[in-house]
């Protein structure tokens, strides 16, 4: 029996995550991923006006804000029989495009970068760049004053930490610049979204924000600045780190996990949804020399609750899902359920999307010896940020044409009132991956509501067959020479950009049962 270590809380993620691993001979032998917070939004929606769902579900998460708002609105669009006009879809695309740019930049710099640099190396900087000197001086001052929070303390730097003082200082500078850039990306989204986090303009049938030409120009000007940062800083940093100081790590394939990838597909580039920024598809046992992409069919999704704190039952499709909490369930260790596709544990997110899209830059990385894993995930995320920037330019051009046509529409007003009965589902490729909402309406009210979110796929516990979730599988074999300093574990987990508040949002719709609390 190896030594067990627990990382709780896993920080620099959204939500509350506990990772437990068993170490043997300096490597992870077993891993358990647990979501430790639940609010119960979905059950609370039952009996309410269905239109509330897009507002409420947006609050599943404030980091990947509004992804649920959009997904929910899409599920309601179907249930209401609403046809979103192309103008409405263009604005939905643009505000979500702004959200992507913000979200991926935030993830790389604020949530991940500190795992890859030895921040104390800045004190050894001997160069004369005034900007870098200013940052050096600031950090040295903080350390001397004995108050370097929140940059320190941290896990001890290891062989994969970059120590070149100039590189580290530059990275710290980019960390500070990124704070401003993602704030600006969010301002860009607020042009039509109203404000962030949590846009206000996405509702069933379309959007509420009637655009004008000046706003299009304002968005474009702000997008130009984002493009400069994404192309010249973010993507270059990721490539520089990934193929330079971290190339050794990239070749190890640290944190690969199950090599199964799932993409629902999203972001139409034309009114008929023929061309998508992210095409849908399924890949099993990925091999970059022969990537076989299968078509996606949502009927093949099931959710297992064997190891989750919900009433025991057979795995079912999300339309028939239920969430009866059982906080005393034996063997359960997470609030996250275990979704499976054709019974398999899948990875969703940027790496899955760029694999299914067979993006040349990523496949080049593989041909040169890079493997799926931590570094590939960061690279895929950076690549698709560029794709999103380019798509935003296209959508702005299309919007300009569209809004000057007579009868321009942003909303299907004829289908604003809830139907007596209805069923619908909506899909969205959120920054963290494939997202789906399912809704049933009875007597003009919500009768059932289910969401299967990206981090539910990635952070899931074991299923009824004992198959590990993707985080868990990714941790197996990860080197952990010093159990006091499990830096590789947080690297692997953070590379997925976990969002646990999203993953756990459910509760019993039938009995609202909550068991008595027992202090351990």
């Amino acid at each position, binding site marked *: 029996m190896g030594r067990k270590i*627990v990382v709780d*809380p896993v*920080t*620099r993620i*959204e939500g*509350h995550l506990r990772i437990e691993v068993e170490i043997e001979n300096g490597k992870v032998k077993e891993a358990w991923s647990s979501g430790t*917070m*639940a*609010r*119960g*939004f979905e*059950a*609370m929606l039952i009996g*309410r*006006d269905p239109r509330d769902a897009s507002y409420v579900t947006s*609050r599943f998460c*404030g980091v990947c*804000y509004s992804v649920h708002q959009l997904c929910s609105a899409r599920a309601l669009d179907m249930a209401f029989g609403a046809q979103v006009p192309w103008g409405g879809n263009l604005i939905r695309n643009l505000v979500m495009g702004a959200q992507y740019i913000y979200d991926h930049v935030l993830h790389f710099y604020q949530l991940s970068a500190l795992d890859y640099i030895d921040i104390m190396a800045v004190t050894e900087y001997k160069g004369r760049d*005034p*900007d870098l000197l*200013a940052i050096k*001086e*600031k950090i040295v001052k903080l350390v001397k004053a004995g108050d370097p*929070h929140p940059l320190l*303390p*941290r*896990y001890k730097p290891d062989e994969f930490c970059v120590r070149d003082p100039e590189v580290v200082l*530059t990275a710290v500078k980019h*960390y500070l*610049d990124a*704070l*401003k850039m993602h*704030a600006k990306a969010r301002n860009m989204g*607020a*042009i039509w*979204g*109203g404000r962030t*986090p949590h846009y*206000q*303009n996405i509702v069933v049938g379309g*959007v509420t*924000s*009637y655009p004008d030409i000046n706003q299009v120009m304002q968005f474009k000007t702000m997008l130009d600045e984002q493009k400069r940062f994404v192309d010249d*800083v973010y993507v*270059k940093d990721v*490539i*520089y780190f990934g*193929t*330079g100081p971290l190339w050794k790590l990239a070749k190890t394939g640290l944190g690969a996990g199950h090599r199964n990838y799932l993409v629902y597909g999203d972001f139409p580039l034309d009114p008929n949804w023929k061309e998508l920024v992210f095409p849908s598809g399924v890949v099993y046992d990925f091999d970059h020399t022969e990537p076989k992409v299968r078509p996606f069919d949502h009927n093949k999704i099931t959710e297992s609750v064997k190891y989750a704190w919900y009433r025991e039952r057979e795995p079912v499709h999300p339309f028939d899902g239920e969430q009866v909490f059982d*906080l005393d369930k034996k063997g359960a260790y997470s609030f996250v359920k275990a979704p499976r596709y054709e019974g398999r544990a899948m990875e969703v997110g940027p790496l899955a999307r760029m694999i299914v899209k067979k993006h040349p830059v990523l496949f*080049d990385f593989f041909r040169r010896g890079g493997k799926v894993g931590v570094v590939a995930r960061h690279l895929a995320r950076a690549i698709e940020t560029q794709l999103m920037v380019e798509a935003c330019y296209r959508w702005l051009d299309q919007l300009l044409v569209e809004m000057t046509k007579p009868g*321009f529409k942003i*909303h299907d*007003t004829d289908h604003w009132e809830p139907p007596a009965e209805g069923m619908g589902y909506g899909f969205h490729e959120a920054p963290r991956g494939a997202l789906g909402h399912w809704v049933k309406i009875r007597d003009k009210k919500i009768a059932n509501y289910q969401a299967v979110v990206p981090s539910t796929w990635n952070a899931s516990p074991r299923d009824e067959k004992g198959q590990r979730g993707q985080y868990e599988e990714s941790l197996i074999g990860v080197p952990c020479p010093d159990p006091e300093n499990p830096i590789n574990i*947080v690297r692997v987990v953070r590379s997925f950009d976990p969002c646990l*508040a999203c993953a756990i949002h459910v509760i*019993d719709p039938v009995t609202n049962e*909550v068991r*008595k609390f027992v*202090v351990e």
Partner: protein
Amino acid sequence: MERLERDLEFYGVSRRDFLKYCASFAVLFGLSELEFTRRLAHAVEKAERKPPVIWLEGQDCAGCTVSFAGLLYPPVGAIILDKLSLRYHETLMASAGELAESVYHETVKEGGYVLVVEGSIPSSDDRFCLVGGRPFREIVLEASKNATCILAVGACASFGGIPKATVSKGMGVKDLVSGKPIINLPTCPVHPDHLVGTILYILTTGKLPELDDFNRPKMYYSQSIHDNCRRRGHFEAGNFLQDWNDPAQKDYCLFEKGCKGPMTYADCPIRRWNSGTNFCIDCGAPCVGCAEPGFYDEMSPIYTAESEASRKILALKKSGLI
């Protein structure tokens, strides 16, 4: 190593390229972080030590953290590094697990910190929110003891917010903690100006700002959305938006789309959001009343005039009070 250089060249990025960018970027932004620091308020400059801050997240969505991180004027980086000693913040701190917990415990022991709470506290069963294996409720109680004051940020930490309507029965800090100064900064999420402004007010004056009956600073929450709404003329004239596609009515009053502006006290129409870019009503969406203790139940349904709040507004209108 040669191999690496080749790979880098293939991608068109050299180390030089990467480092060179920095200087041009600084020009783009004008002020460096350090220069900015020098210009900050004297009171804080003189302080011998930066006030420690513990930021706890309970039943939250991290939206308030993200909102705070969106501050540009001043940049949030300057606040985090120059003005405060942010000891514990799950989403931003470098450390994790036991290491993170140890910093928390040391700071609590030391005392004299500002406690920020984001997210509600489950009141029906502690197990709905465990951090480090412990009930969040216990952590809030423990961290409150040695805090100088508590800032409840966002609707959830202030009054329970949306989680209050769920089976976990989320509650605000004030429902749990007594005997400590508590400042509520509702809205969903918190407005970054409200949070940073309140902190700066306390640091500069050494006093709490004047609070209303719901512990909200009067400087931000004393006027209704309705009183400062530029669509108010349309409310008086009875012009209510019916169709979002019609340019002629795009600036009409949103009351019939569920706007709760007359029952909601916050300075959104004046201050606006995202560095003044916009706010809910200006993007054609109704005010949802997220600054009020009754949010969300009293405000639901959100998009019609049938909620409890909307009925109150109608009654006020009938009796000529608004």
